[in-house]
């Protein structure tokens, strides 16, 4: 876009500046050169590869089963039907109960909302303490926390099961929220610590001189100044927690299973005829929340993953 627009003013500028011959000759060749065809060609092929599964999901979920058996997976639906979507949402079976993905969806909402809020609250206070109120030994805890981010979850899940069982909350949503808070802590604390450290120190000092304490400075100065980083953290946590599978399986009872677990149980259930269109509708429904977050948040998501990639 910028290049086409710049063609004319550029030419006009060159004409006033001196010999017009050189800029005149070059520009048009550049936009249609062999190099550009290669460049955009490769990018387009790659883009098609990345888009293909999404496309296949959508078209499969809109076909009826007879059409799936006859046609190929890439052809668009001849007869569009939304029945698979309705079935995936309300009546698909996981083993004994047949109330569809809706239950998993609401479980995931009930898991994701408190987990996101609590993990961000805890981690932002941690980061704030580390950035502005560092006490002796704080860095040691922080280092352990960061190293802990690399330890495979499998090493720590059983001890957590024991702790939660002792507390009497193993298998409940509360337990799972605590687990998400724990495992979100390393990356979020890092994120907030770095952000709060980058704020001008004078601000903090001025508030101290005016007599503000730990919590006052946090709620009245740091929090209002840091909305962007809170949004980044929220994106990170919502997608991460919504997509979680392992913790959902380990730390909750079947009636609280999050959407990912239920989706897997629906699609990979052994009994009954495989209904691929329902499966794909269910898969899309499960992927919808993080996808919407992703498409709406755009650049902030990129910023979040650049910081949160450590989470793996």
């Amino acid at each position: 876009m910028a290049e086409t627009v710049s063609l004319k003013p550029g030419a006009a500028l060159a004409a006033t500046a001196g010999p017009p011959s050189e800029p005149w000759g070059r520009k048009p060749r550049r936009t249609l050169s062999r190099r550009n065809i290669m460049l955009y060609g490769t990018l387009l092929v790659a883009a098609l590869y990345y888009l293909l599964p999404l496309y296949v999901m959508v078209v499969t979920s809109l076909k009826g089963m007879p059409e799936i058996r006859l046609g190929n997976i890439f052809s668009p639906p001849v007869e569009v039907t939304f029945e698979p979507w309705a079935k995936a949402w309300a009546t698909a079976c996981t083993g004994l109960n047949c109330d569809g993905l809706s239950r998993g969806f609401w479980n995931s909402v009930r898991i994701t909302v408190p987990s996101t809020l609590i993990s961000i609250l805890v981690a932002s206070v941690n980061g704030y303490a580390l950035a502005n109120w560092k006490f002796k030994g704080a860095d040691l805890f922080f280092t352990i926390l960061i190293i802990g981010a690399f330890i495979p979850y499998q090493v720590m899940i059983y001890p957590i099961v024991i702790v939660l069982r002792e507390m009497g909350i193993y298998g409940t949503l509360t337990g799972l929220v605590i687990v998400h808070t724990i495992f979100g802590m390393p990356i979020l604390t890092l994120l907030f610590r770095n952000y709060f450290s980058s704020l001008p120190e004078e601000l903090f000092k001025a508030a101290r001189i005016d007599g503000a304490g730990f919590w006052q400075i946090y709620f009245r100065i740091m929090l209002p100044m840091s909305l962007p980083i809170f949004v980044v953290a929220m994106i990170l946590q919502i997608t991460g927690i919504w997509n979680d599978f392992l913790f959902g399986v380990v730390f909750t009872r079947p009636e609280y299973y999050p959407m990912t677990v239920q989706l897997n149980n629906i699609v990979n259930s052994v009994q009954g005829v495989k209904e691929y269109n329902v499966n794909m509708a269910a898969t899309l429904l499960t992927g919808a929340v993080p996808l919407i977050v992703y498409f709406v948040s755009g650049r902030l998501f990129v910023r979040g993953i650049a910081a949160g990639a450590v989470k793996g």
Partner: protein
Amino acid sequence: MTGQAHTGRPSRLLRNLSSKIASIPMMLTAVVIFLGGTIWTVVYSFTNSRLLPRAKFVGLDQYERLWDAPRWIVSIQNLAIYGFFTLVFSLVVGFLLAALMDQKIRFENTFRTIFLYPFALSFIVTGLVWQWILNPEFGVQSVVRALGWTSFTFDPLYNADIVIYGVLIAGLWQGTGLVMCLLLAGLRGIDEDIWKAARVDGIPMWKTYLFIVIPMMRPVFITTLVIIASGIVKVYDLVVAQTSGGPGIASEVPAKYVYDYMFQAQNLGQGFAASTMMLVTVAIIIIPWAYLEFGGRKRG
């Protein structure tokens, strides 16, 4: 830093008290869960715990049994294959895409959005989509056969010899966008003047990338490598969704071994031993990196 700003002189423990109270969740997580939990698991991997953890030590029995188990050997081999190809392909493809994206192209945001969206999806979703696409009866194989090439065979998910490559295709689809993004950020950090100087000297572009830009991006590459590698060791949900470890045990991975022994087979000792081996694997990757990264920074 400003911790000593109190006017009175309360005891050392009470100094900066709010900060300490506020950090209790962090301290508990770090010490009890991360440190304590890890030590606990390692210690109990030397016991013969079955349904419940029991402190009856049996030395290296669990590890001997682990390395005798065909399923564990298959898991390790799969992890090695999956890990090697994931590293190679995601770095190569990720870098190529990043380099293409860095050519001041139009629609950069659109392309980035497309390359990165799989990363927003869960491994469960990824695994299930690719299970469908690679379905031999309806997916790629049947489409190619319908075009006339009737002997075409591509059924990785049903062929024990190549099933892990089927998982690999899905894993790459999900993760390459992230690598592209990280490397693109690295490319953007290269000074424009370097490019100008290389152009003035008449060095071809591919040579500039290979001999100047890539060596300059070493820290970015190393960080990316560590990120990919620690993700590889954790691979679990993808396999569960796409193949459930099958056919047979052909696509088992260590993380799944741990889960199955801890929560299904009620053989905790085996689970602990296997998870300790995972920890060792990660340590082998992380320790040299941490040494290079942080040891070097102090000297610099």
